C-alpha cells in the first residue's frame, strides 16, 4: 500500500513537471488575430478598389464601341460579339462590307492582345484617318442593320481617365467635321486611374 502511494506520488510529481504553460502560445495567437483584423479593416477602408472594365459592352441592341481616353492617347476597342450574326442576316454585298470591317477590327484587337505589359500602356495618339475610318465603319454597320431590319446599333462610348480630356477633345473636333459621325450616338463616362481594362472579359461574363 505504501509502495503504491509512493509510485502515485512520483507520477504526480512527473505530471506536474511536464505541464506546459499555454500563455505564450495564446499571446502569439491573440497578436496574430489582432494584426489580421487590423489589416482586414484597414484594407477595406483605405485600399483603392481594383476595378476591371469589360471589353465588350452592350445594352439591348445598342452595342458600344469603346474609346478609352488616357493622358498618352487613346485605346479603342471595337465590338465584335454580334457582327457574325448580323452578317448572316444581310445580303451578299453587305456581307463583304461586314467581312472587311470584321477583319480590320480583329487586327485592332489582336494588336492589343499582343501588347506586352500593362494594357493601359498601349494608348496611342488619336490619328485622324483612324478616327474617320471608325466613324465610317460604325455608320456603315448601323445603316446595313437598319436596311436588313436587324436590331443592331453601334454607338461611341468614351471612357475618360484623369488627364484624358485632351484626347477626347481631339476626337470630338474630328467628329465635328466628319459627316459619318453626325448619326452616331455618343456617351461618355469618367474613369479613375486604377480602373483597368480586361480584354478577356465580356459583358456577359460580367453579369
Amino acid at each position, binding site marked *: 500500500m505504501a509502495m503504491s502511494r509512493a509510485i502515485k506520488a512520483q507520477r504526480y510529481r512527473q505530471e*506536474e513537471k511536464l*505541464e506546459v504553460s*499555454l*500563455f505564450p*502560445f*495564446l499571446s502569439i*495567437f*491573440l497578436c*496574430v*488575430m489582432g494584426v*489580421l*483584423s487590423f*489589416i*482586414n479593416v484597414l*484594407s*477595406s477602408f483605405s*485600399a483603392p*478598389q*481594383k*476595378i*476591371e*472594365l*469589360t471589353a465588350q*459592352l452592350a*445594352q439591348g441592341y*445598342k452595342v*458600344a464601341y*469603346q474609346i478609352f*481616353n488616357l493622358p498618352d492617347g487613346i485605346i479603342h476597342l471595337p465590338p465584335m460579339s454580334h457582327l457574325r450574326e448580323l452578317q448572316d442576316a444581310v445580303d451578299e454585298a453587305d456581307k463583304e462590307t461586314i467581312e472587311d470591317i470584321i477583319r480590320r477590327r480583329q487586327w485592332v484587337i489582336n494588336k492589343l492582345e499582343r501588347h506586352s505589359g500593362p494594357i493601359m500602356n498601349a494608348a496611342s495618339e488619336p490619328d485622324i484617318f483612324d478616327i474617320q475610318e471608325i466613324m465610317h465603319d460604325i455608320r456603315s454597320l448601323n445603316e446595313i442593320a437598319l436596311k436588313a431590319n436587324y436590331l443592331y446599333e453601334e*454607338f461611341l*462610348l468614351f*471612357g*475618360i*481617365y*484623369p*488627364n*484624358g*480630356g*485632351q484626347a*477626347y*477633345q481631339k476626337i*470630338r*473636333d474630328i467628329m*465635328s*467635321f466628319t459627316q459619318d459621325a453626325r448619326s452616331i*450616338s*455618343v*456617351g*461618355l*463616362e*469618367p474613369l*479613375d*486611374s486604377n*480602373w483597368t481594362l*480586361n480584354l478577356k*472579359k465580356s*459583358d456577359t*461574363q*460580367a*453579369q
Partner: protein
Amino acid sequence: MRNLISLDSLTDIVSNSVGILIIFAVINLIHDNNKTYQLEIPLEHETDLSPVFFIAKNDRLLVLDTDKVFSNAALQATTGAAGKKRIFALDFFGLFGQIDEEKGISFYARDTSEWPEFIELEKRNSSLRDKLNKIDPKKQFAYFFVYDNSEDGATAGSGFEAFRKAREYLKGHSVKTGWQPVNSEAPANICDSSYSSRCVYLPSYLGGGNTNK
C-alpha cells in the same frame, strides 16, 4: 496550479478565429481581384430642356449663375475684351472669363477655395443641395464642365468625384445630366450652336449598367 481553469478550449476558440480570419482575408482578396465594372451607358440625346451649368474642380462644385456671368461679360465686352481676347475677372466665385467669336465665353477656374465642396451634398440644408434641388426636371437638366486634371493620376484635384456624386444625387431627383471634360488648355465654354457645331450641351441617359461581379 491544478485548480486553474484549463486553457485548452480557449486556445481552440482562438485558433479557430484566426483560421476563419485568414479564410476571410483570402476570400476578400479573390473577390476584389475579380471585380469587373460595366460602364454606365449614358447616351447624349436631343432635348427641349434648358441646361443649368456647373463647373466641377478640386472636389468642388460651382453652379454657374449665367445671368450674372453673362451680364458681367457683356460689360467687359463693351470695353473691348472681345476683340483683344483679354482674360478678365467675372466677379463670380473667382472665375475669369474670355470672349471669343468661335468659343463664346470661356471660363477659367483658377481659385476654387470659395466653391462649395461636394461633400456638402450629404448635409441637409446645405446651400449646394438647395441649388441642386431648385432644378426643375421637367424644364431643366444639369450640364457639368468637369476638370480632368489630377496630380499623379489621383482623383484628388480633378472634378470626377464631385461630378459623380452630384450626378447620383440628381439622378435620385429625376434630373438628367450631361458633361464634358475640361482643363486649363481647353476650358469650359458656353457658346451658341449657330457659331460652332461643338457648342452643343446635351443630357445623357443613365442606363442600367453598374458594378457587377
